[in-house]
């Protein structure tokens, strides 16, 4: 980019934004896509209704920091976990209820599965070594124990299994199993985050040693993806499962999951060149497009095949710490460590 052709960032023309007063821990859209939420380090949740996006609602949810945010099972609303041990449900109008409380322990990860036709929704949270599983009504189904603290939590695309990363590997649990014994995916070292491919066959973890590790479930093949200058904090598969996008380098690192997987192949890199660390990635819910956010506040959207970049937000609002697409892929939300939060409408006009 030369100085004379400054990119036309979309933040002002397509977005609404606020300077909130705390670290943006996470952002999400509810399942209707009508409301966005920003979870903050001061325990508050800021709700933005897209039909009235100038008026944001602040809800005090946790007494301490919010640590995790996910869309609720129900069509609207959110679920959040905090360092006050609370697992709470927040409706899109700001009404709030307790799902569970874990006392002194932190609720560090939250994941949800929508279910089908209003049935079979699931909610999971990680507290220390345990994953707690709840049904749609908030009733507790089971508690799953791991050999060490859980560092990442994800449902597969069909809600059949839930996977947790931890020290020396990951555990994969069948949600409906009568006897709870996980499939243990073992690899020495500290695993710090997790993703499952849309077809459910690949489990990928981020590792303390600036690398990714993967297991192909169908044949037990291990996958090692290394070369990152920093730890990967964000992993996202494209909807078609062809690419795994990852943070931790000065570009978006995309591993190919076609034709036998990433083994022996070089990753594709997009949105690089500025010498700034990528902190967050989020693949578009339908297209082969990835949103990427950086340590200087830059947010871009990149088309994977062509590598073409659309600039979304300029540097300057602090390291980006949260990034999410709406379910239809028309809206993008992001937030930063400095408390900057924005929602952009990227739909065709």
């Amino acid at each position, binding site marked *: 980019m030369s100085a004379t052709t400054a990119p036309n960032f979309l933040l002002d023309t397509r977005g609404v934004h606020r300077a909130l007063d*705390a670290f943006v*821990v996470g952002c999400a859209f509810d399942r209707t896509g009508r409301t966005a939420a920003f979870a903050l380090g001061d325990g508050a949740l800021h709700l933005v209704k897209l039909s009235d996006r100038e008026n944001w609602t602040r809800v005090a949810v946790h007494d301490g*920091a919010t640590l995790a945010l996910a869309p609720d099972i129900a069509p609207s609303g959110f679920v959040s976990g905090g360092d006050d041990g609370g697992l709470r449900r927040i409706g899109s109008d700001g009404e709030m209820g307790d799902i569970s409380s874990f006392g002194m322990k*932190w609720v560090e990860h939250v994941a949800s599965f929508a279910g089908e036709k209003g049935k079979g929704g699931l909610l999971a949270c990680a507290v220390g070594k345990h994953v707690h599983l709840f049904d749609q009504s908030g009733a507790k189904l089971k508690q799953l124990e791991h050999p060490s*603290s859980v560092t990442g939590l994800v449902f597969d695309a069909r809600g059949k299994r839930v996977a947790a990363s931890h*020290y020396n590997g990951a555990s994969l649990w069948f949600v409906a199993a009568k006897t709870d014994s996980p499939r243990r995916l073992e690899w020495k*070292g500290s695993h710090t985050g997790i993703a499952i491919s849309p077809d459910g066959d690949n489990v990928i973890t981020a590792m*303390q*040693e600036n690398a990714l590790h993967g297991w192909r479930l169908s044949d037990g093949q291990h996958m090692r993806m290394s070369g990152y200058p*920093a730890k990967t904090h964000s992993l996202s598969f494209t909807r078609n499962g062809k690419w795994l996008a990852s943070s931790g380098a000065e570009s978006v690192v995309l591993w190919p999951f076609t034709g036998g997987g990433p083994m022996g192949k070089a990753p594709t890199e997009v949105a690089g060149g500025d010498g700034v660390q990528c902190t967050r990635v989020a693949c578009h819910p339908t297209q082969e497009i990835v949103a990427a956010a950086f340590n200087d506040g830059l947010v871009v959207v990149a088309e994977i095949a062509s590598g073409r970049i659309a600039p979304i937000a300029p540097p300057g609002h602090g390291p980006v710490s949260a990034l999410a697409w709406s379910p239809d892929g028309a809206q993008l939300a992001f937030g930063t460590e400095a408390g900057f939060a924005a929602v952009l409408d990227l739909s065709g006009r």
Partner: protein
Amino acid sequence: MAESSQTAEQVPVTVLTGYLGAGKTTLLNRILSENHGKKYAVVINEFGELGVDNDLVVDSDEEVFEMNNGCVCCTVRGDLIRIVGGLMKRRDKFDGIIIETTGLANPAPVAQTFFVDDTVRAKTRLDAIVTVVDAKHLPQRLEDSHEAEDQIAFADVILLNKTDLVTPQELEEVERRIRAINRFAVIHRTERASLPIAQVLDQGAFDLQRVLQREPAFLTDDEHEHSDEITSVSFEVEKPIDPERFNAWIGLLLADKGPDLLRTKGILAYANDDRRFAFQAVHMIADGDFIGPWKEGEPRISRIVFIGRNLNRPQLRRGFESCQAA
């Protein structure tokens, strides 16, 4: 970036070690209840003992993880990496972090966490390791456990507590034993862990700028050098150091003897450089950077300190001397 200081934004972390019953919890309660106008996040592992109501108390299970980086003694506290990350999200709510370790804990994984993890390094700085020891029972602890010795060896500040339970002669003897292990730590004699908090917190002991600032006059006694007891030795040379020779020597030494070398610290005068180079290591994990220039007229003497087991004094001395520029 190497010269710029980020310390203003980095949260100071104090690690509190000590055997069960030595007085750690008493000290912690003092820190939390005294009116010093500061707020601390506290990471503990035995919640029941802490009598103070503090909404920033984090209950944690110590999770010591091995690193896959080819370093046999490199372990980190996985739980601390997670907790520090979580606490940073509410950064504006506290002035420092205090980590209490269990009585039997080896301090190395805690210290190494602050060298190894990038996020922890960027957001926090290890301020000091504070070890509380019981004047009456320390001799027995040193007989029956490695950990008691390790905790003293790693300490920057030692509270020699429960001095009211021993005679002056016993106190002298126990202090002599501490000095034989670690002659560089600051020792405070206390009853019921009572001392001004400023003597424990904000010590800057791991700050490269202050690596050897507190070093006492060089001692020449060579007692207590048998086999697996921890001792400390230091050397100085007057001729400038050749950086390449030093790096080659220290790299090999840490790789070879890392498990025995608990802490290594040095201030070096490199040939043709007006800045002081500060170096420190915990086992094999090392860190070094240029700090401020030598003062006008100050003798440019390079010094290095080792605290560890099986220290071969003549060999270490010859090694360090061989790093002098030709």
